[in-house]
């Protein structure tokens, strides 16, 4: 909490020192509120604190990814952050009078936007804000999944126009781990390159399996295990995988069965079902499936294409 308050930089060092951070939550909150009132905190200050908190605890939100596109042959993008911010705010306010928009610059080229939505007659709900993270001169925007889905088209429009794009599309990619989403869409996850300067030989591969193997079984299926390792390494690479929690496959395919007969075999309509893979770290788990002997190598391309295609929601239909 101290780090967040220090980053906020609204309460002075002296003021913070007067607070006892070990007391009960309610009393602590009261003390802090008193100090904020002393400094005459405004809605903007509070919104800023909210952004900082979310930045520190970004995993508490689930993030969606939107992709924007420009028309062909556009001039060089001279992105002006101030222009973007004012344009974005103006578009939202023009459409919806009751809305609170706050900005906080992050890194060198990114901005975090907090939007508290109201309605035509109702004040903005400050307890259910939406967040947008945008990196300038890129076609991607990350938004926290908001419960208020009706405002999504307006948000998309504001983003598109303010960043001088033409279209916006929601990607089938969702995760709590914002940095992993960023790595996937910016293609920053595979960053090992062969150079003459690298000293570590690329052929080194630690077969962590060996520890778990029974020491009496030495040569059993050694060639097969090596093949599995090689195939896994070719597909997943040597780099740490971006972190996702699930992959979801919506199947709308006709039922296929080896057995002749059966009730479902003659069904003309496609069978609808949903297959969901969950894991604290899905891609690492998939990577370890074949070496652990649970699945055949190579894995199905439906599983291995996830970072490449930037998707973890799939709809599978018969061709």
């Amino acid at each position: 909490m101290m780090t967040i308050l220090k980053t906020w930089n609204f309460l002075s060092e002296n003021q913070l020192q007067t607070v006892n951070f070990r007391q009960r939550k309610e009393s602590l909150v009261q003390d802090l509120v008193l100090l904020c009132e002393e400094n005459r905190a405004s809605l903007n200050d509070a919104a800023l604190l909210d952004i900082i908190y979310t930045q520190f605890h970004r995993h508490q939100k689930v993030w969606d990814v939107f992709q924007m596109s420009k028309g062909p042959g556009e001039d060089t993008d001279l992105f002006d952050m101030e222009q973007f911010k004012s344009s974005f705010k103006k578009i939202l306010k023009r459409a919806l009078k009751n809305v609170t928009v706050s900005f906080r610059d992050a890194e060198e080229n990114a901005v975090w936007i907090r939007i508290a939505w109201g309605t035509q007659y109702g004040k903005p709900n400050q307890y259910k804000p939406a967040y947008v993270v945008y990196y300038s001169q890129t076609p991607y925007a990350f938004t926290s999944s908001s419960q208020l889905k009706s405002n999504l088209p307006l948000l998309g429009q504001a983003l598109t126009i303010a960043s001088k794009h033409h279209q916006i599309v929601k990607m089938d990619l969702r995760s709590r781990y914002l940095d992993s989403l960023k790595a996937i869409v910016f293609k920053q996850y595979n960053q090992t390159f062969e150079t003459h300067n690298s000293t570590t030989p690329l052929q080194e591969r630690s077969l962590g399996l060996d520890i778990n193997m029974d020491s009496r079984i030495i040569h059993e299926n050694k060639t097969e295990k090596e093949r599995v390792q090689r195939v896994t390494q070719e597909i997943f690479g040597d780099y740490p995988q971006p972190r996702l929690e699930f992959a979801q496959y919506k199947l709308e395919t006709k039922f296929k069965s080896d057995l002749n007969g059966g009730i479902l075999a003659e069904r003309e309509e496609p069978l609808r079902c949903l297959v969901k893979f969950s894991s604290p770290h899905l891609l690492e788990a998939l990577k370890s499936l074949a070496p652990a002997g649970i699945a055949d190598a190579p894995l199905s391309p439906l599983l291995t294409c996830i970072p490449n295609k930037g998707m973890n929601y799939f709809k599978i239909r018969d061709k």
Partner: protein
Amino acid sequence: MELANTLSQDGESRGGVLAHLERLETQVSRSRKKMEEPQSAQAEESALGTRIHELRRLRDKLRAEVKQHQASVKASTTNVEPDQTLEITEQESLKRKRENVKAILQAYRFTGISGKLTSRGVCVCISTAFEGNLLDSYFVDLVMRKPLQIHHHSIPVFIPLEEISAKYLQTNIQHFLFTLCEYLNAYSGRKYQADRLQSDFEAFLAGPLQRNSLCNLLSFTYKAEPEGQFFPFCARLLYKDLTTTLPTDVTVTYQGTDALSTTQEEQRAAHEDLFFTKPLHQVFTSFARKGDKLDMSLVS
């Protein structure tokens, strides 16, 4: 002797003389022999003496041969060591040659574009630099296939890689790499200037430097002298050409509430020129050095 025998058949007296003669004869032959013996002994002696000499000579000769042989063996063993050291130095020189080649390959990155063959193609390294400072390196891992593909890369997402690949990757790979090199070097250079302004000349800026991902739009409020609390100028630099490190558009406006005096107008115009012609951080270096007086000679 036959005479002696015939004589003995004649009579005893004759035997006496003949025997006497016989005896004298044998005496003579004995004495002759005796006289001859020392001669033969001498001869034998001298023969033995010569033999001894011969043997001695032979012995000395053999001794000398043995010594020579030993010496030559020693000499040959000492000749063997130089051969071994020759081997070692050959090894060392090979090792040195190999390390030399490796170092040259590593040093190739200083040329700006270098590469290493991979199992599927080549990994190209573009090392950017500005004003003699080596900056970030970017990689493009190419798969040698028809059509040529980029396996993965570390080019930032705001560099128009797709555009450049669409134009040149399949038709003219040299042009592809050179164009990419141009864009990346220019980006690195602009970024370097913006970073230096932010870090080294914070005191001259009022508030943070406004920038974007490509560092092709910079906006800041500044003063031209180290002292003073007033930041009279606001500059806006646009780099419409992404392959350059100097701006294409410069606007310097005066921030003060009072009317713009002629000196201030001169300053403003001079600053605009400076920003057009000199890298950003160098302009501020000149501000820091000159203090109040702006050296008009800086304006080329």
